[in-house]
């Protein structure tokens, strides 16, 4: 009996959803890296090995880069906007919504931040305090939030698909931003938006001594705070309870008296605000200026990938975002001729391969489940032998049995998978 219990726990642990998801995510990352390496090898066999090592461990100092601390700064700087857009998408996912409008929310948030950063210099000294950048960040979040609330309202009260509305609003947001920039804060010489005033740049708060890179600022801290807050909202608050409930089962939420329309709208508003924050984090930086071209900002779409890979949880998104920063910076480093002159786009190849493979997670999970069951049955068998209760038939059946039901129900998809499985579970 005790053996049984032990075996059950082992299985239950590894086959529990969270662990399985994490394992399959890691598996996807591993395969994606492998494929990335193969592509690099095909492009340039001589340098593939060296360059690949740089890409996956770009924090290590090499000739081309600075010290480890410097590299870390660069990585964090690159990870910041992606963590935030990923977080934005993860949050919406929990309500069962796919906020593809994150691109538009990012853009309008960025332009709002730039506008405040350029025009509202008076905020630089309010009773001795620099309120310029905080206000710029806040305005970006508000504008991003409004932009996110539009598909939310449409979804909640008119049942317009949020994906369609989001895509439309991406373009509307982009063109509106271009119009707004050329009209108000246009730098004619460079044909770009003006750069923000120094008082509107995100401060470093000593991070530059820790990570002596010129790009580092408190953006990463803002991202971390956003991750923690969303995590708390989702898992510890009444509001989180409600929006997750709406995402998992709308009808039951309605039955329980949850105001689903309000929750959908609010969730997308918050999601949009986080996207707006991402926009601010990218453009409230010295020397960075908004290009007036009709191209959707890529950070939003990358965020989708990061969110999925992070299992649409805030903490997962943060970790994967950092990993993405590592790859991105690595991609930047390997451009030089010294490392074979790879294009940084190789990183996008790796990332997209990872996403592509993570779509196979179900497949991965299935095989993992089998392997784990096999191992656990082996362990149980060993214990039985130790106890001196060797039952020949039982041993044999233990080895084969766990894989059987699944295999059968897989082959005969039309057959009563549900009932049979249920019966087994009971």
């Amino acid at each position, binding site marked *: 009996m005790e053996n*049984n219990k032990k*075996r*059950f726990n082992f*299985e*239950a642990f590894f086959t529990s959803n969270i662990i399985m998801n994490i394992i399959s995510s890691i598996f996807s990352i591993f395969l994606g890296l492998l494929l990335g390496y193969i592509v690099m090898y095909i492009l340039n066999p001589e340098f593939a090995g060296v360059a690949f090592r740089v890409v996956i461990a770009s924090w290590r100092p090499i000739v081309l880069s600075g010290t480890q601390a410097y590299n870390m700064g660069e990585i964090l700087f690159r990870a910041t906007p992606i963590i935030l857009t990923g977080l934005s998408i993860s949050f919406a996912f929990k309500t069962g919504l796919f906020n593809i409008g994150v691109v538009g929310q990012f853009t309008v948030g960025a332009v709002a931040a730039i506008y405040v950063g350029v025009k509202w210099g008076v905020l630089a000294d309010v009773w001795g305090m620099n309120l310029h950048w905080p206000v710029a960040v806040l305005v970006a979040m508000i504008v991003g939030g409004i932009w996110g609330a539009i598909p939310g309202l449409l979804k909640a009260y008119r049942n317009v698909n949020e994906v369609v509305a989001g895509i439309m609003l991406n373009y509307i947001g982009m063109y509106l931003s271009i119009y707004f920039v050329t009209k108000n804060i246009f730098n004619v010489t460079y044909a770009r938006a003006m750069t923000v005033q120094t008082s509107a740049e995100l401060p470093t708060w000593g991070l530059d001594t820790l990570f002596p890179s010129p790009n580092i600022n408190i953006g990463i801290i803002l991202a971390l705070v956003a991750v923690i807050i969303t995590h708390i909202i989702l898992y*510890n*608050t*009444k*509001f*989180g*309870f409600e929006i*997750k*409930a709406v995402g*998992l*089962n709308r*009808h*039951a*939420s*309605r*039955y*329980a*008296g*949850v*105001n689903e329309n309000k929750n959908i709208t609010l969730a997308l508003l918050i999601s949009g605000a986080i996207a707006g924050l991402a926009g601010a984090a990218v453009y409230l930086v010295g020397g960075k200026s908004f290009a007036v071209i009709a191209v959707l900002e890529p950070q939003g779409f990358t965020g989708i990938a990061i969110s999925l890979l992070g299992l649409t949880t805030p903490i997962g998104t943060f970790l994967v975002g950092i990993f993405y920063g590592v790859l991105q910076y690595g991609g930047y480093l390997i451009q030089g001729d010294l490392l074979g002159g790879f294009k940084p786009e190789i990183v996008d190849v790796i990332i997209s391969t990872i996403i592509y493979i993570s779509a196979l997670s179900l497949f991965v999970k299935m095989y993992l489940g089998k392997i784990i*069951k096999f191992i*656990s*049955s082996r362990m149980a068998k060993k214990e039985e032998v130790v106890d001196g209760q060797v039952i020949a*038939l039982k041993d044999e*059946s233990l080895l084969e*049995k*766990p894989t*059987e*039901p699944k295999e*059968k*129900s897989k*082959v*005969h998809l*039309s*057959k*009563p998978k*549900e*009932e*049979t499985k*249920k*019966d*087994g*579970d*009971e």
Partner: protein
Amino acid sequence: MEYVVEMLNITKEFPGIKANDDVTLQLQKQEIHALLGENGAGKSTLMSVLFGLYQPEQGTIKINGEEVKIHDPNDANKYKIGMVHQHFKLVHNYSVVENIMLGVESTKNGFLDYSVAKKKIIDLSEKYNLRINPDALIEDISVGMQQRVEILKMLYRDAEILIFDEPTAVLTPQEISELMNIMKGLIKEGKSIVLITHKLKEIKQVADRCTVLRKGKYIGTVEVKNTSTKTMAEMMVGRPVSFEVIKEDANPTDIVLEVHDIVVQDPLSHKLQVNNVSFAVRKGEILCVAGIEGNGQTQLVEAITGLKKCTGVVSLNGEDISSASIRKRNNMGLSHIPEDRHKHGLILDYSLEYNLVLQEYFTPKFQKFGFLNNKAIRENAVKMIADYDIRSGQGPITSARSMSGGNQQKAIIAREVSRDTELIIAVQPTRGLDVGAIEFVHEQLVEMRDQGKAVLLISLELDEVMNLSDRIVVMYEGELVGEFDPKTTSETELGIYMAGSNRSEE
């Protein structure tokens, strides 16, 4: 005696559980053999073994006296075994003929030949009295007809041994009696039937013999004729079960719920789903709305609970709540055991403890300043699990999805009756439950009544209606067509009203 199927000493294990432990089932030719057991007793597993979906660890299967190995459903087909699943396996936008011939299509020069198939299907349907419309799409026909299509599918493949998995769970009383006749007709034509069920009444009606399973173990096989339902129930549950609901006479006092001229219109077809319905429920009584499925009971409940818009007046304790939000109604003392526990009753991917506070998570007991009090939520779950004997794999953190139907329903009932409410609306609270669980539900509802709460029960089962209610109203095509006292009325009388025959009198 000649057996067409013998399953001898079958043992089927799943990790941590013996779904079948030394089970024997012997099916005679031309008999209806009932396989009785509670949910999770291993009935479906045993039949899945016969159908080739699982391989047993031990035991032998004999077909017509010959030992066989059934590796997959194709083998089962070969031995002329056919199965009608509880949830039909039909392609919804295919016609009846297409569904039946799917997999064994008749062709002519490489092209599908419908005419041959159609002729065979019509012949079969006439022979066995299975009324179908061969050219209709599955999505357009009734559940009863879909089931007949499933039966024809087996017959089309020349099945001799027919397995019915809980066939009556989805049917109306009329469709059930029709199915019973079909089954009797089938055995007359030389087929043999295994009927999986936990409804004793049906076994008594059609079955010749009955094999009882309990918790995976073989309890025995009995001749249905010589065995009382009480004995079979006891074999199934393992303890004496009372079918009679023991309750005192009702002592109704003040009106709790009053509805006046409720009208619900279908937004698409503009049909009146609920037509000018008025009634009142008092403290300390169980009012039952009887009727055949689809006569507006669902919509009536949705109107009262606020899930659907309606015209008319709904008042709770004298206060008009017609335009109040769902949350407000719930807080004012309305509790609702919904018809569809998966759609409305539970958030399947939430844990049991979260589901148990679904109606109360926002109260000061479980949250402060918007933050959930997870400790209180856990304590609440532990208490309810103990009080209502809710069984689950991992206690409070079990996901609701992994629980059995009976325990899911127990969780919902625990949540709804433990709240401080004055009105309980229970919609088909015992649907799909086994005897033990039904007993529990009935006890709870009577207990609520005795505590002075008002209970509005919506039920399709006449037994339940007669046993449980203090007052009965019958609903037909959206209207209330009669009010009855269960002590003076009969099932026949109710049946006549439910079928709409006496409509003009009222």
